[in-house]
Every structure is written in C-alpha cells, then in structure tokens.
C-alpha cells in the first residue's frame, strides 16, 4: 500500500468529485488553449487573406504594367512612325542663316563646311539620327521652264557610335535625279527619261508620289554634282537629321544644346509640329497609364494597409476579449478546484483522523491531496488541450488555402497547458491540502 494507491482508490471511489475537478481544470485550460489557438488561427487566416490580396493586387498591377508597356510601345511605334513619316524633321543650319528667308522663301543662302557632318557623325550625339548633308537651291529650270527646288545629297552619314540603321533616304547616284510629284507630272517625266538641268544630263531614277509639301516641286541629285553645279565644293547648306525617339520633356532644347556643344556656329530648327503633337498625345496617354499604374499601386497599398489594420483590430479585439475571459475562467476554475478540494477534505476528515492516528505523517497527508491535485491537473491538461484545440480550430475559420489545422498544433502550447494545469490544480488544492495535513486527529476522533 502506498499514498499513490490510496489516491487512485479514492479517485475510483469518488468519481464525481474527480470528474468535476477535471471539468474545472479542463474549462480553464480549454479557454487558455482555445484563445491561443484562435489567435494562431487568426494569424494564419490573416496571412492567407493578405497573401491572396497581395496576389490579386500584384496581378492588377501587372495588368496595369502591361497597359503601360503597351502604351509605351504604342508611343514608341507612334514616334517611330511619326518621325519616319516626317522625314528629316531636324534642320541644322549655319548660324548666320536668316530664318526669315528660309520660312518666307524656302531657300537657304548660307553655307557651312561639309566636314561638319563628319564631325557630328563621329561624336557621341544621342538626340538625333540619320544625318543627311545637303545643298538646296531654288532655280529656274531653263531647259524645262519651271521653277524648282534642287537638293543635292550624298546619302545618309552613319553615326559611328550607333548600330547602322536602314537609311530613310537612299543616296542619289551620280548622274541620276529623283523628282517630286509636281515636277514629273508637269514635265510628263517617266523613270529612265533623260533630262538636262543647268547643262548637265540626268537620268530619272525615281519619281515620288504626291506629298503635298515642297518636296512635290523638288528634284534630288547627287551632292557632289550639286556642289559642282552651284560652285559650292566642300560646302553644304544644311544637315538634315531625324530626332531620336527620346520622348523627353523638351526635345528641341535638348537637341540644340547637344549640337551646340559639337557644332558651334550652327543653329537648329524643328519641322512638323502637328505630327509631333500626335506623338505628344501618345506621350500623354503613356503618362496617364503610368499615373494610373501609380494610382493602382497606391490603391493597392492602401487596400493592403486597410486590410492589415482591419485584421490588426480584429486581433486586438480577440486579445482584449481573451485577456479578460481567460483569467476569469482560470480564476473560476481555481475556485472550483479549491471548493471541491475543501469538500473532499471535509468529507474525508474521519479518514484523515484515523490515518494520522495509525501513524501517517502530515507531509503524507499533504501528498494524499496534492498528488490527487497533480493527477487532476495532468488529466485536465489533456482534456482541456483537446477541447481548446478543437474549439480554436473550429472557430478559427481557417481558409482552405491555409491547409489543415494540423499546423496549428504547438508543442509549446501543450507544454504550457500541462504546466498551467498542474500549477492551477496544485495551487488551488494547496490550502485545502494544508488544512487536511494540519487537522488534529484527536479532535476528529473525539467527534465520533
């Protein structure tokens, strides 16, 4: 016979007392574990919701980014088409050239060394492409009785630091002539026809369709031949260029600044503003798309922050409720255990008296009750953990995406539940056990 056997036999005899004590401990532990599991489930659910929201947001942003990319590509394509359609829309002229003459009469009387174009081609210029040195002169085509604009070009000069690009304009071979619409229609010219201009014979190489510009009254010949015809060896009137698709805020100013650094003594003008306005519109469309993207991102950030705040508020509410409920239930559980233990002591006073009389020491009587309390704590911890985990899992409302509830299991919480149950049961039973241990057997035995 031992104290433990005595405890087990007493438990078997007074099952209701034991069951009620287990219930008290279990309720307290279930409340504690349930609260912790609920908080853990909430954290898991929050993470899942936020992850889902982030995913949706990222998807929306990606869509918006695709829109922006599409707008950008559209803009690029548009700019490329526009600038290509415009032809050479940048004109580099000698500094002394009177622009009034150029705008009013369409002629350029000043000239500059042809080598400037090579200097430009060998520079690291980025704001323009497709350099085309040219001579232009309005003449009366005496052989054909028509006033025309003669443009001499030597073909595009490649910019050395860039990949070679397909030229906008092919070189006009020596001895040939490319003619504008008004010229070939009025003169009834066909490809291959031989014509004479300023005493020099040319073969019609190409005839342009109607452009509706000064090009319709222009003929193009080889630059060297033009220089010879006009007595301008090694000189050019202008360098044509195509502005790059840089889509910057102030293109012309940037082009002017860059060229001024390379070719001082020149001036730069831009042609074709209406076409560029369309490009600007596209640019605005891209800006709008970028702005929409930023707004989308900002909205996503706000939405995520709002969700996080909402979940944090829910968590705070849960914690607040738990911080009140759990201690209350634990105290109620402790009181329940203490009352049951006091009742047990009172019920067993004769037993205690006779056990003391036959020689059991006070510590043995103490352990008779504390040992029972520890058993109650152990069993209560198991039952309470199971109940609390079940409640927490059921009420935790875990999203399917979060997986099974198995990952909510925590060995630390189980350990805490066991320790808490043992402490709760032990502390609550301590005073009744002390009362039992201090009972005077003589008083009890005299009461019979």
């Amino acid at each position: 016979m031992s104290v433990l056997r005595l405890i087990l036999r007493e438990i078997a005899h007074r099952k209701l007392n034991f069951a009620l004590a287990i219930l008290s401990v279990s309720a307290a532990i279930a409340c504690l574990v349930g609260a912790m599991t609920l908080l853990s489930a909430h954290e898991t659910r929050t993470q899942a919701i936020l992850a889902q929201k982030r995913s949706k947001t990222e998807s929306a942003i990606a869509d918006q980014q695709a829109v922006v990319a599409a707008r950008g590509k559209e803009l690029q394509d548009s700019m490329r088409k526009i600038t290509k359609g415009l032809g050479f829309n940048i004109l580099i002229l000698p500094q002394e050239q009177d622009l009034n003459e150029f705008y009013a009469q369409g002629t350029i009387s000043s000239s500059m060394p042809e080598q400037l174009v090579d200097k430009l081609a060998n520079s690291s210029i980025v704001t323009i492409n497709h350099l085309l040195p040219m001579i232009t002169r309005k003449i009366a085509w005496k052989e054909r009785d028509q006033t025309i604009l003669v443009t001499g070009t030597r073909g595009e000069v490649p910019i050395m630091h860039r990949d070679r690009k397909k030229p906008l304009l092919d070189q006009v071979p020596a001895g040939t002539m490319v003619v504008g619409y008004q010229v070939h229609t009025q003169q009834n010219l066909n490809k291959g026809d031989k014509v004479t201009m300023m005493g020099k014979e040319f073969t019609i190489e190409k005839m342009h369709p109607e452009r509706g510009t000064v090009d319709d009254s222009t003929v193009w010949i080889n630059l060297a031949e033009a220089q010879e015809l006009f007595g301008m060896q090694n000189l050019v009137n202008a360098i044509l260029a195509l502005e790059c698709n840089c889509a910057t805020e102030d293109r012309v100013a940037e082009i002017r600044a860059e060229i001024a650094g390379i070719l001082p003594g020149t001036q730069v003008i831009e042609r074709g503003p209406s076409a560029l306005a369309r490009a600007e519109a596209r640019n605005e469309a891209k800006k709008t798309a970028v702005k929409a993207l930023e707004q989308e991102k900002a909205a996503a950030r706000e939405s995520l922050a709002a969700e996080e705040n909402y979940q944090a508020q829910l968590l705070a509410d849960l914690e607040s409720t738990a911080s009140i409920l759990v201690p209350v239930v634990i105290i109620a559980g402790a009181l329940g255990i203490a009352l049951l233990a006091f009742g047990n002591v009172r019920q067993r006073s004769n037993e205690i008296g006779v056990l003391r009389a036959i020689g059991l020491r006070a510590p043995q009587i103490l352990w008779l009750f504390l040992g029972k309390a520890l058993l109650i704590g152990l069993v209560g911890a198991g039952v309470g953990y199971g109940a609390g985990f079940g409640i927490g899992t059921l009420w935790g409302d875990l999203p399917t995406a979060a997986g099974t509830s198995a990952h909510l299991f925590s060995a630390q919480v189980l350990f805490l539940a066991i320790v808490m149950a043992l402490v709760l049961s032990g502390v609550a039973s301590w005073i009744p056990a002390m009362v039992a241990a201090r009972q005077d057997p003589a008083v009890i035995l005299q009461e019979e």
Partner: protein
Amino acid sequence: MTAAMLLELRNIKKTYRAAKGDVSAVNGVSLSVDRGQFVGVQGPSGCGKTTLLLIAGGLLTPDDGDVAIGGQDPFGLPADQRANYRANNIGFVFQQFHLVPYLNVIENVLAASIAAPHAQAEKRARELIAHVGLESRIHHVPAQLSTGERQRTAFARALLNQPKLLLADEPTGNLDHDNAQAVLGYLKEFSREGAVLMVTHDARAVDYADTVAQIREGQLLQEGVSADTLTSSS
C-alpha cells in the same frame, strides 16, 4: 518505570476551554500498563475515557502530567517522529472502526503499512485477516461488511505493525454479543504478548480485563481496582 511497564501516565490533567466554561476532562489521573496486561477503564459517557486514551496514544497533549510509552515521552518528540513512533508501537481500535470506505479489507489492513512500510506487510495482513476469520471477505469494502466484520478488520489493521501497546476505545460499543466476545477475545489474546488499555462503558468488557479502573468526572476511583495498577492523586 519498570522494565515491564509499557505505558505510564502520571498525574495527567486535561481541560477543554469553552465559551460556556472550562471542562475538566481528565483531572490528575495516574495509570500504568505492563507488558502482558489487559487494563480496562470503565465509566459512563463523557467521563473522560476517550481523552485519557488519546493522551495515552500520543494524540492529545495533556495540560499537565507525564506520559511514557516504553520509557519514551511521545510529547517530547517532534510531530513527525511522534507519528512514526505511534505507527511502530501503538495500535488503535475505535468504536466507529474508522475504516477507509473505499478500501477493501486487505487494503484497509495494509493502510497501516503506509506509515511503517515493511516487506512482509501483505503476508502479515493476510495472516491477520485469516486469524480474524475474514479470508472470504478480503476484497469487500466496509459497506459490504457487518459491524462485527468491520471491527475485526480494524483489529487486524491495529496489529499489522506489531505494536507493543493496543489502545481500544469502546471496541464493543456497536457490536452484538457474539462479535463483542470475539473482539474481546482477540484483545485478550494480544495482551499475552503485548499490553492493552481499553476504555469502555460496557460491563461485559471488564470480564476480560486483568484489572479495571473506574473513572468518574475525569478522576480514577479506588474501588474495585488493583492497587498495583492504578492510583489516583486526587
């Protein structure tokens, strides 16, 4: 105290304090019990018999006087040592049996071994149960036993640790004639090796005692008692 003397009470006094006035339960009692002696103390209810027995068993501290059990003053020992001394030297038999209700017969007998464990406890418990005729009831709990069987179980428990002194408080108070005779027979039998002090108001019981003292209002009377075994200082 002689070598044969197992219990000696000298000029024992015990007063209970109460709101309605003090009650003198034992007033100057002196008594000794030798090995091999069965001493009976007879008196009416409330005369101080049980108080005297509890003092003799080291359970109730007297206000005055000396107690010696086997030459040892139990009240001079710390509480745990006194309990240990009681477990190894004194057996108790009570009128109400005081069996543990959820233990069966053998477990109740073995309960005494919690205080004084020994290897042969179960064997001795079975022998004692057989001796008191309860082999067939060995796994029965008190509620399934008759009053006589309960008292026999209590008697077996009292003897488990082979005490030197047996203290019996109205052991036949709740028993019929046959069971009372049987229990008194066991006490008598034990007194041949050890010593028995029995307090009772049952006139039948005194027939088994070697000497009998009469107690009235906490004092032993001279009449009908052996001068060797009891004296009164009053």
